[in-house]
């Protein structure tokens, strides 16, 4: 298969030169254009108040098994079709639990826990997963490349991947096929000045009063007062992620 070393060397040089020029042209030309496009992406949301830590207190003693008022409200608010398949996005779900030793049961709404030390933010290669100054953990839909590493890293199964093209999106909740998403604590409402998330509002309106939303950092707030007075736990507290969602009664 080989010719004389000299000829082989000359052939190699010529081939390498041509290959290098070709690769450089193919890689650089669109790259220069794409870098411009990437840099033109909108800047991150500004204006979140670092003095605030938004959070939820969920009182499972008031949460009825099978009641899905909060889940329905969440999905309606954010323009998600009612999920039926494992590929459908679920930003919130009800988990029915039973303690193995005692048989004690509880019904627990689970969503993004808005950790102070979020593993999804740590692992995200592009910084698309980020935590706002007010503690809300979000995904920048312009920067998410859909690698799903955050879903591998989340201990709460709180994130969903958009598996197919979307229709009927809400303008205030942009979503995108091929991106990862999850509970935003209704950030669009908060940024408009509304005081409640859709889940908390629905739960209160239905008279259950199991979900309380507010600023955990404000000692005068209802949520801070209740967290002070009631025994509450964080899910997977052993991981020390300091979630912004607390549970009473489990």
């Amino acid at each position, binding site marked *: 298969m080989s010719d004389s070393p000299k000829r082989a*060397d000359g052939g190699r040089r010529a081939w390498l030169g041509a290959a290098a020029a070709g690769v450089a042209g193919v890689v650089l030309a669109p790259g220069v254009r794409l870098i411009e496009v990437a840099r033109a992406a909108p800047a991150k949301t500004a204006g979140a108040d670092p003095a605030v830590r938004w959070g939820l207190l969920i009182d499972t003693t008031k949460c009825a098994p099978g009641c899905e008022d909060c889940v329905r409200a969440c999905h309606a608010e954010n323009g998600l079709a009612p999920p039926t398949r*494992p*590929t459908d996005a679920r930003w919130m779900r009800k988990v029915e639990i039973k303690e193995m030793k005692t048989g004690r049961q509880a019904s627990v709404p689970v969503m993004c826990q808005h950790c102070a030390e979020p593993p999804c933010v740590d692992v995200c290669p592009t910084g698309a997963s980020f935590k706002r100054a007010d503690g809300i953990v979000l995904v920048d839909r312009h920067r998410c490349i859909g690698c799903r590493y955050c879903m591998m890293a989340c201990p709460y199964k709180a994130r969903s991947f958009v598996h*197919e093209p979307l229709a009927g999106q809400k303008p205030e909740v942009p979503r995108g*096929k*091929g991106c990862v998403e999850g509970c935003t604590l209704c950030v669009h409402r908060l940024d408009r000045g509304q005081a409640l998330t859709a889940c908390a509002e629905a739960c209160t309106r239905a008279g259950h009063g199991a979900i309380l939303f507010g600023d955990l950092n404000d000692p005068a707030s209802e949520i801070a007062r209740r967290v002070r007075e009631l025994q509450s736990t964080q899910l997977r507290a052993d991981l020390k992620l300091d979630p912004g969602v607390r549970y009473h009664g489990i």
Partner: protein
Amino acid sequence: MKTIAATRNFWLLVAVGGLVTAVGLGAAHQMELHGHVITGMDNSIVWGLPHVFAIFMIVAASGVLNVASIGSVFGQPAYKPRAPLSGLLCLALLAGGLMVLMLDLGRPERVIVAATHYNLKSVFAWNVLLYSGMAAVVVVYLWTMFERRYKAWSRPAGMAVLLWRFVLTTGTGLIFGFLVARQAYQSALLAPLFIVMSFAWGLAVFLVVQAAMYRWNDRRLPPELQHRLARLLGIFIAASLYLVAVYHLTNLYFERQAGFEAFILRDGGVFPLLFWGGYVLLGSVLPMALLLHPRPPGEAAVLAAALLVVAGAFAWLFVFIVGGQAYPLDIFPGHVASSAFGDGQVATYRPTAPEWLLGLGGLGAAFLLTTIGVRVLDFMPQDDLPTARP
């Protein structure tokens, strides 16, 4: 000599490699068009078959450089003529693996974002730098081997490659090692485990490619060299098996991991089957028996053993990646959990045709690059020993 038959065979191989690659690209296009809903992946199994293929190729890419390292860095003369082929295979496997990884992204067209925005706390972001850096150092290394004026730099370049690939495979292991959420991962042992596995998988791939090249050129590997390479692969398989055993034994010692280990090793259906039958028996014990037998193994036995190691690698990666996600997250320790989102249940996963085709397309791309490289750049190992077939 490039005979007419050799040229015809070359174009035939290019056509086969090109076709497989094109089918893989077509599958990726379908995935982009319709979304990942056409795959078997869902919100529980988020990484499926494409990751098995991609991680195999990336880990093997690092391991295939063994041969070059033993030649350049440790000065073993029998390995030196094989160093260029080992470098080429590294580049080809890296390209194939990255192709699969990138095309399995939800937004592959945004790959430029991954190159312009780095979260330096992310192991994935480190890996983006490690993979591109690996390709760069291997190119420099190949250059020092081919360009006579730079021959003196071959050893330092080989050393740089050796160090870089240790870091690269550490990085690949840590993609999983740093995941605290899931019981299958979160172990520092995964970094050395991936390094040792890379030795075995890379050498196995090298032996398969070398056997094919020698056969097509109607040449024969010197028996003594064949014996040495076979024994080396046998030792690498044994070392991998040892670290896998340690990984499972440490897990079995921790009570909180008992359920997960019972699932992977005994109760989990396809996963224990692939682990014991695929990885342990076919991918490790059988090739070790073939390679470390007191009577030196023949050509066919070495090739069979190398192919078994590759098959075992796929079995192990499937168990590790998919099995690790199939076991439910323990969000409520001490409780039985159930929900409409699969809480407390073992997730099911059935890979679909686009996933298989994308993965095979990556292998096709690696094959294509190797074929072209070997032909154009003349990578056939040139031993001084008599090698013609009798």
